[in-house]
């Protein structure tokens, strides 16, 4: 399979051509090399996982895709064009949304309001218009609310619609965060450790939601995850990183049988 081709998954979905391509990315913080010469691509409609042990550079990689970090070397192609250095909000306007490893919600606001903030990139009326509550602002609010309600229904969080998120258990907060990212109608969704700190049942729920998002909305998903079991179950293709380098790339079964990956995860004896 060449990098730009579409392909068929074992369960019969057709994955489109690539939407994002990393070419020889290197990222350094002073003398520390976080990412070293990594290249991979993300195809349209696929679930792409980035895995690796602690400190492998996974979150840095996500932050590069997200535009939060600018790599010293290499280039990023998004929808076939080389991406210029951008601010995170500019990237949000390009249709890339994300969730965070340590939940970054507005704790004092309700679930509904938090998810509404995700609609920001789709608001056309300015602050002034909203203050005077013009007809256009009202219509827009109603449309956005309707969209958000569909997400609430999708994620089955109707019960906590009006609850301040600070009062919610961890697993639900993660779900609200996913909701906020979905509210932006992203074409590429980045999930930073969506299952971290969850129990088995919450992981199963979250996996189902991720698969359903991919299935229902056709959203391309790139996710970082620690839990190998989950990744192997839901991802179409996996990039494995270790010490800032790419040590494996392919379908879950290919990766699972890759000796370098096994060594990185299980350790290797130095004799």
């Amino acid at each position, binding site marked *: 399979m060449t990098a730009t081709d579409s392909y068929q998954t074992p369960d019969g979905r057709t994955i489109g051509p690539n939407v994002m391509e990393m070419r020889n990315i290197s990222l350094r913080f002073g003398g520390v090399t976080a990412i070293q010469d990594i290249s991979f691509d993300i195809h349209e409609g696929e679930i792409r996982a980035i895995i690796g042990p602690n400190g492998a550079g996974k979150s840095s990689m996500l932050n590069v895709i997200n535009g939060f970090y600018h790599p010293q070397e290499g280039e990023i192609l998004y929808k076939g064009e080389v991406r210029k250095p951008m601010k995170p909000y500019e990237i949000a306007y390009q249709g890339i949304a994300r969730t965070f490893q340590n939940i970054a919600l507005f704790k004092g606001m309700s679930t509904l309001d938090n998810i509404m903030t995700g609609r920001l990139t789709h608001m056309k009326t300015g602050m002034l218009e909203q203050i005077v509550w013009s007809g256009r602002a009202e219509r827009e609010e109603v449309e956005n609310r*309707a969209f958000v*309600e569909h997400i*609430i*229904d999708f994620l089955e969080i*109707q*019960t906590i619609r009006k609850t301040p998120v600070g009062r919610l258990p961890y697993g639900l907060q993660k779900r609200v965060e996913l909701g906020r990212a979905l509210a932006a109608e992203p074409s590429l969704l980045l999930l930073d450790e969506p299952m971290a700190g969850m129990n088995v049942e919450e992981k199963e729920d979250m996996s189902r939601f991720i698969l359903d998002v991919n*299935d*229902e909305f056709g959203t391309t998903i790139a996710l970082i995850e620690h839990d190998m079991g989950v990744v192997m179950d839901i991802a179409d293709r996996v990039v494995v990183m270790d010490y800032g380098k790419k040590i494996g790339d392919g379908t879950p079964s290919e990766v699972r049988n890759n000796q370098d990956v096994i060594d990185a995860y299980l350790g290797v004896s130095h004799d």
Partner: protein
Amino acid sequence: MAASKSEKSTFASIPELVAFHALNIPNSPAYREKEYGIWQSWSWSEAAEEIDALALGFLTLGVAKGDYIAIIGRNRPHFYWSMIAAQSVGAIPVPVYQDAVAEELVYVLDHCGAKFVLAENQEQVDKVLEIKKDLKALEHIIFLDNRGMRKYDRANLHDFRDLQNKGRNSEKKFAKTMASRRKAIKSSDTCVMLYTSGTTGRPKGVILSNHNIIKTSEASSSFDLLNASDDVLAYLPMAWVGDFIFSIGQACWTGFCVSCPENIETMQQDLKEIGPTYFFAPPRYFEGLLTNVMIRMEDASAVKRFLFSYFMAHAQKIGGNLLDGHSVSVIDKLKYAIGQLFIYGPLRNTLGLSNVRVGYTAGEAIGPEIFDFYRSIGINLKQLYGQTEASVYITQQPDGQVRSDTVGIASPGVELKISDSGEVFYRSPGTFVEYFKNPKSTKETKDAEGWVATGDAGFIEADTGHLRIIDRAKDVGKMEDGRLFAPKYVENKLKFFPNVLECVVFGAGRKFCTAFINIDLNAVGNWAERNNIAYSSYQELAGHKNVYEMIKDHINETNESLADDDMLSGCQIHRFVILHKELDADDGELTRTRKVRRRVIEDKFHNLINALYDGSSEVYTETEVTYEDGAKGAISATLAIADVKPVVQKGKAA
């Protein structure tokens, strides 16, 4: 131009009633459902159109007369329409408990030979597909929520709304068939088949005819003056006969609106928004609600707590009398009105029960304090007694004659009799036709004259005509000296104490009664915290001597009230033990609906029972437990046995 009641009485089927309302009150709301945060509503004419579209859709799939259509899902307008649409084409709806596991589902779907299954969502579809190989009759599955269904093979799988559209498009072809099938429905035809939950053995399919449902709905609606302006919230399982009578029978008879909650967890919030005028809930619902109120009051400010206790005491005194229409002094009325403004009104509103005109509870005994609490704040809560085989109603309490210890007088049209053995029998227009494919059980339950055995023992109070239920007939026994032994009656009295979660009373054929007690970890744990009692496990708390003292007080109180009862004074508890583990359905000690399985418990804990009767003061025991994941383990403990001095019956003092 509403037609007169007499005209309605000639209708033979539910679809006819729907057509009647669609013609007479086309714009009144018939169904509501909260979705996407908003109450969506359908008027009677819109509902009739939805039902027609689905009925036509059924015809495109080849639904034949007499086919069984199973419905698996939570309360949603679409499923109510499905039942009426099924009837419209001569098929028989079979609502099934949505939380049934695959194994239970196989039995029911295979037993009725369902050709069509309506499933709510992917979860239910998966469950049906999993057992499909065991269901020879199954032809088509129709699902309502298309989420996650994209990748399924659609050969025999249909989207509910697509099917409706298909029906709309083939109206020309099938409209005549639908009309003629609708016209052909006789009042003796099956209206619905409901599977009883089956505490003993396999579930039985109870066949209820159109006559059963319509006559029962007519009688019960006029009993409580239900009318088109009433509102109900449909949140109880659709497979339960009560929901069918309330949300289909009475709704279609009177034309009131049925509202469905957004999902099961939001029920309380939705209840508050709808403010139903007619409401049913099982006793444990009212119990839970009251506990919540009390916990929140404990956290409230001192002023609020004072106001609450002051006005609640007043309400206890006269609230019930006001509801029953007894005379109350002007000053008390005035005080109640002030309480109404500050306490009762806001409280009713918070509970979502502001508008309740008729409230019912049934299924289990309700604690008198709980019952009185709701009545005292002005909620007309009443009790009824019924079962699936009777199309719900056997007895119910008329306004003005409400008491916590009876289940009321015979419902309109119902005849009652008590057999020599004390079992309650009834005969009514609602009496079921038969058990499906089970003539043996039918014969055992219903005799040639139409009298149906309830399986409950009870008696009719001579002066008021109210029925009092004592216990399940098969559990009622005699003690060694021939006095009546009714375990559940005693157990219910004990369970009204918040500290007692569960208890089992023994005494059949014995000299005296004894009991197993399960403490309620929440209530007792809370009490322990307040009293500075340290404990590290359930077992340790259960064995604590202060807990024993507390339970002993409860039993003393129970004994006192039993001593006042001529028939049941023999059931006083002499000795008891607090169990070291909670009785659990996973261990087979309770049914899934949390009813005690006496035989199992007697078997499993026979050494404890022996110790209760042989006079020992403690006993060592080892018990097998099943964890939630199915793994087994054992716990052992030495349990103390406590003695209680029985109360001597008045007038019989030795």
